[in-house]
């Protein structure tokens, strides 16, 4: 199906008299629509004069989505690119083997149309979007992947492996659901080792102690900046909008880790300066909102935009695409090969609050901590249509928040822009009630 070489610009006018095939037309349409979506987002963002200047670096990455995503990833020509999904693929191993990881979780409504050919109607928009990008050459980096690592987290992801097979070299990772048991941990460590062997085979480089240690270090340094960034976000009034924060953390999907760390360091410094000089992104009385639930990936930022357009501030989020993705760290203890691999394996599963695991303890505690630390006044629980794990957990979280006395609004939506006005009305009403409480 991949007759178009990756990275080629959108099929232009038909050569000679040959009319465009249905597929070519579709690709052209999706590329155009995606470019329009991205342009709209940045036009909206430019209206905000108080944006930190260091955001320009992250904007550049996403602006490239308008041009088939060329240059979004910085892998050199001879470097192997390994696509990842979810939060369970150990990137340390990919870096240690000299590969380039890129996370493929997608948020574009525009590619859903293609994905719908593969999946049932009730499938969540995220897998539809991902399938769309994998199946057709819309974005360059989806086509560049030499291998795709797919954890069997939710049912959609589990079955997506087979569907991806015609387009990608797929490596399934079996994440244990009941992670409390000893055998589950051993099994997961074995899965990580299997992944390591596979990556080594793809890149042709054996991972030695030193490389693994350096890779761990690189990512830890990035996370160290994230810790700093998140601490700055706790300041009231907020020095940065939540949607900008989402963008920053989302950019980690694609960017080279050290470059990204540098860019975030620059941003952190700017934010520190802003706090010193009293520049803020939202008024001190803005309602502090926590977003949790199904992940939000660029360009699906309609909810954060609505929240902040209405005068609230997205103070924190609990998404596997941002906060949860980068907050837990590998803890090297002895530094032997086995110790490091175990540390990596455990970091990706044990503290993870993904609802595909059997219990909600980790997630409940995490949300409770976020509410306290970021002084959250209201929680918006975001469920993507078809995302059952998050939908199921909603009741437990609602109960927890009731006990804490924090109001919660559940919204169920997908990637389409159709329900924006309806969402706006509901979120506006919710934020009004928050104001009333003050």
């Amino acid at each position: 199906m991949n007759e178009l070489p990756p990275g080629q610009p959108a099929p232009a006018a038909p050569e000679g008299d040959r009319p465009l095939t249905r597929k070519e037309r579709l690709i052209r349409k999706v590329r155009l629509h995606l470019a329009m979506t991205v342009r709209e987002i940045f036009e909206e963002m430019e209206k905000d004069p108080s944006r930190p200047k260091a955001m320009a670096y992250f904007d550049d990455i996403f602006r490239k989505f308008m041009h088939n995503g060329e240059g979004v990833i910085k892998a050199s020509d001879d470097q192997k690119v390994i696509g990842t999904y979810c939060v369970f693929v150990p990137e340390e191993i990919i870096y240690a083997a000299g590969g380039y990881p890129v996370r493929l979780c997608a948020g574009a409504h525009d590619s859903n149309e293609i994905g719908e050919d593969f999946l049932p109607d009730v499938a969540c928009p995220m897998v539809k979007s991902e399938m769309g990008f994998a199946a057709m050459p819309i974005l360059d980096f989806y086509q560049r992947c030499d291998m795709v690592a797919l954890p069997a987290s939710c049912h959609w992801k589990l079955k997506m492996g087979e569907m991806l097979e015609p387009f990608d070299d797929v490596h399934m990772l079996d994440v244990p659901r009941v992670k409390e048991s000893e055998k589950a941990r051993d099994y997961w460590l074995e899965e990580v080792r299997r992944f390591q062997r596979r990556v080594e085979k793809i890149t042709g480089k054996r991972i030695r102690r030193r490389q693994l240690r350096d890779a761990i270090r690189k990512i830890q340094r990035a996370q160290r900046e994230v810790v700093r960034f998140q601490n700055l976000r706790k300041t009231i009034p907020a020095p940065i909008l939540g949607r900008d924060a989402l963008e920053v953390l989302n950019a980690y999907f694609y960017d080279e880790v050290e470059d990204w760390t540098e860019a975030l360091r620059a941003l952190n410094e700017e934010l520190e300066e802003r706090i010193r000089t009293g520049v803020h992104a939202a008024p001190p009385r803005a309602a502090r909102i926590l977003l949790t639930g199904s992940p939000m990936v660029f360009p699906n930022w309609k909810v954060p935009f609505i929240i902040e357009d209405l005068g609230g501030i997205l103070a924190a989020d609990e998404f596997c695409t941002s906060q949860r993705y980068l907050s837990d760290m590998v803890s090297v203890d002895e530094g032997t090969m086995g110790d490091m691999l175990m540390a990596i394996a455990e970091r990706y599963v044990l503290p993870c609050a993904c609802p595909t695991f059997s219990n909600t303890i980790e997630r409940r505690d995490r949300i409770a901590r976020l509410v306290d630390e970021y002084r959250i006044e209201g929680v918006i629980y975001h469920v993507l249509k078809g995302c059952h794990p998050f939908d199921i957990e909603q009741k437990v979280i609602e109960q927890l928040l009731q006990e804490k006395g924090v109001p919660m609004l559940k919204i169920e939506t997908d990637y389409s822009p159709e329900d924006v006005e309806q969402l706006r009305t509901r979120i506006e009403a919710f934020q009004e009630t928050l104001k009333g409480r003050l």
Partner: protein
Amino acid sequence: MNIQRLRLAVQLLSFTVLIYGGLFAIDLGNRLPTFACSYVPDHGGGCFLVGFQHMLSRPLPEFLGEQGIRLLKALGIASLWAIVLNKAWCGWICPFGLLQDLLTKVRVWLSIDMSRFSWMTRHRYKSVKYILLALLILIPLGIGNGLISRDWTAPYCQLCPARPLLPLFQGDTTQFAINFLSIPTMLLTGGAIILVGLMFTTSFVKRRFLCSYCPMLAFLSLFDKIGLFSLKKDGDKCTRCGNCYRACPMEIREIEEEKTLKNLVTQDCILCLRCVEACPENMALEAQFAGFSFLKADAEAFLARQDAVTAGTGTRKGRKKK
């Protein structure tokens, strides 16, 4: 503050004091609840189990008189020591523990991976140290009342791996031998040599292997609740990332799993405080002495430590960039 470096320093200091202290006229008494072997010539302090076993080897009626007072006094002093420093005796003072920790350093230097017992195995053998502690009292009583041969005198000293090993540090090799006097002495002293061998070999596989079976640990664990050192956990802050469990040389799972229990000095804990250092969540773990908190889990400290670990030897190089 790097607690593990501090601990090593304290361990080396205690080792010097306990093994060579006598040469500098230091005497901490012979009632210390730690493996400060009394067989070491000119030791600076002695293990209380030697005297304890001898005192117990008496006919029962004698305990109603002066002998009973002496026994209670010895036990009282040892208990007092145990309350003041509880498990710090194991993690910070025990010379035998230091030797195991040093061998672990050699193993890590040779980059040999450690291994752990399965949870079931670990659980199954937890009672061994208490059985040994019970026998420590019953055998001397048996000897004193004519039920057991005199050849079993001070059985735990005969069996203790610290007895052949620690006098070597003063050049005394006489204890590094099997006593062929009788079958019991042969079994016990032979056992000690085997335990020394086990200590050396297992240190290249596991951490603090022998400590889990130590009757002294069992004795000290009786004071876990009232000891002045305590390890607090705030379950709400815990993400159950498992870092503490992985860092724990005694393979204590409670440290990771427990979300409600407040004091985490469990029966096998040796207060090495590696768990507190490995914890990345602010204030989730906290070490206290007499209610005064002296070490807290801290995200910044965690990161600094990780920086040092992943930098290998060149710690400074990593910091310069910042």
